[in-house]
């Protein structure tokens, strides 16, 4: 595959972003390196219908964006990484851990949390209950309390809303709940499936601001987004998917030179 042979430049980029991220890490409470989530020649689909035709992917520090037109397989690919869609062929690893055949409920214990499309909040539960459900895989009560304090530190707006039902919150606050709940799992890698979907346009910037707060704390984010312009401001590395294959990958600066690609797949 062409994008595998391009790995040389990719490694350089990764080294660069390591340096850049190093500065961020100093201010963050969480230390230590976040493992790389990588996929090699992943094929997957639904029933007889193959969606992914050999995707090779590697997460970078900060925000790795996956763009692509509708039906390109972005969401399916994300779901292979969190175990909801089974992998037909190829491997998925997180650091040294092989996730290829793991179930979603096991993958989360390795430190990967997913925010499904639209945030996936539990509307009938209170904010605090939402956060508690996020920690169901965690046994250590002290760690849970610590993380809850951390969530409220990152999203102080939730402090007064703890007893309120999640459905009563605004779109932006619901996103905070969703991100906070994912933080409760203790994950350091977050898979975000179109977090801006369903948000009012004026809230989109705020939403990306919330993701930035997560990254500032040393988290690694893999972000699927239709709103390419807004997401590019956050991106440290970009993949473009179409028809179940990787069409481009590189730092966002390189993307601006690819006029044809931008127009063809992203409509920019």
């Amino acid at each position, binding site marked *: 595959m062409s994008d595998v042979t391009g790995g040389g430049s990719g490694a350089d980029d990764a080294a660069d972003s390591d340096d850049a991220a190093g500065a961020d890490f100093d201010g963050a409470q969480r230390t230590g390196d976040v493992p790389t989530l990588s996929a090699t020649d992943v094929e997957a689909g639904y029933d007889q219908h193959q969606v992914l035709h050999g995707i090779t992917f590697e997460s970078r520090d900060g925000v790795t964006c996956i763009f692509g037109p509708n039906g390109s397989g972005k969401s399916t690919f994300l779901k292979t990484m969190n175990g909801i869609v089974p992998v037909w062929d190829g491997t998925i690893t997180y650091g040294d851990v092989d996730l290829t055949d793991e179930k979603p409920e096991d993958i989360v214990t390795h430190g990967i949390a*997913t925010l499904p499309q639209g945030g*996936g909040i539990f509307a009938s539960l209170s904010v605090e209950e939402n956060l508690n459900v996020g920690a169901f895989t965690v046994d250590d009560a002290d760690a849970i309390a610590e993380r809850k304090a951390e969530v409220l530190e990152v999203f102080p707006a939730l402090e007064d809303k703890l007893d309120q039902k999640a459905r009563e919150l605004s779109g932006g606050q619901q996103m905070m709940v969703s991100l906070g709940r994912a933080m409760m799992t203790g994950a350091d890698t977050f898979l975000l499936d179109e977090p801006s979907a369903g948000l009012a346009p004026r809230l989109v910037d705020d939403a990306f601001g919330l993701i930035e707060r997560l990254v500032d704390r040393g988290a690694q984010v893999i972000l699927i987004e239709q709103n390419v312009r807004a997401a590019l401001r956050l991106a440290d590395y970009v993949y473009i998917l179409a028809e179940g294959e990787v069409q481009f990958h590189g730092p966002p600066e390189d993307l601006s030179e690819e006029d044809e690609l931008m127009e063809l797949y992203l409509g920019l």
Partner: protein
Amino acid sequence: MSGSAPVLDRLPGDRRYWFLALGVLLLAWPFLFGSFWARIGLGALMWIGLAQSWNMIGGYAGYLDFGHGAYFGIGGFAAGIAMVQFGYPFVVGFALAIVVAAVLAYLVAVPTLRLTGAYFAIATWALAESIKQAALILEITGGTFGLSLPRSPDTFIGIAVPFAISETFFYYVMLLLCAATMLVTYVLFERHEFGYRVKALRDDQDAAESLGIDTTRVKRQVYVLSCVVAAVFGSVYAWYIVFIHPNDILAPIVTDRMVIMALLGGLGTLTGPIFGGLLVFLLQRLSSVFLGSSTFYLPLIGTLIMITVLFAPSGIIGILRGEIGRDDVRKNLKELGEKFDLL
């Protein structure tokens, strides 16, 4: 959200005294009001318990089980077959009802809980219908003749009991079962982590899974539990009513009633099925007494369902808790008017 104080919070005094008073009333009921009202009471208790059993899978887990009545019938026939065909005492039939319902529910859960929404509803409905048809042709269930259970006034757990098995006795059995069902629901669904898993998968299954909840397993557990509860009531009902027939205890109306009760009372709430069960059961039983017709309650319930779905989706309990106020009703009316060009 309306600003008026919820009705439930406006009860004067400590809530504990109200619970205590209710407990005393329930315990003294048959002695206070006699055997006719004991019969009404035991029916109400049974239907409240059945509504709660449906509420576990239909309300808390959000899986619309339209074949739930089948487990009530299976419980009844399990007890009936054990007592009639094999001559065992009731307690064996009771145990058999639990085992058969649990095993069948598990086998049914594996394929059907992959389905959602209408597909799950249709699959369970078809299952119930096929079980009813099977009971009508099988010999062991008595076929179209039904089963007549021995009136066993003196054998409970196989040993002689010092009192006559009467309406009063069954009233207390139903009271015990209903209270146990409420307790199990309260502990499992409102207090225990299990309940949050169930509600989480109802609200968003993908999100629940990505947070480490094994949703397939949780769904199966809820389904099996809810079916066993229905079967338990079915077995006691068969023992009490003495004659069981597939067209009776396996009829779709059994499921329908449970659904309506839970819906009217408030889906996914502990106390909803109590209010809904009581209201629907009393309307039905006392229809001929107070409304002058034994079927007049049907259009009445139909109207109530429409009102609930349109104006108070969280049911009676939602109104009592103050979740639905005058503003919400006005808002719903307005939306409805706009939708149908009435305003």
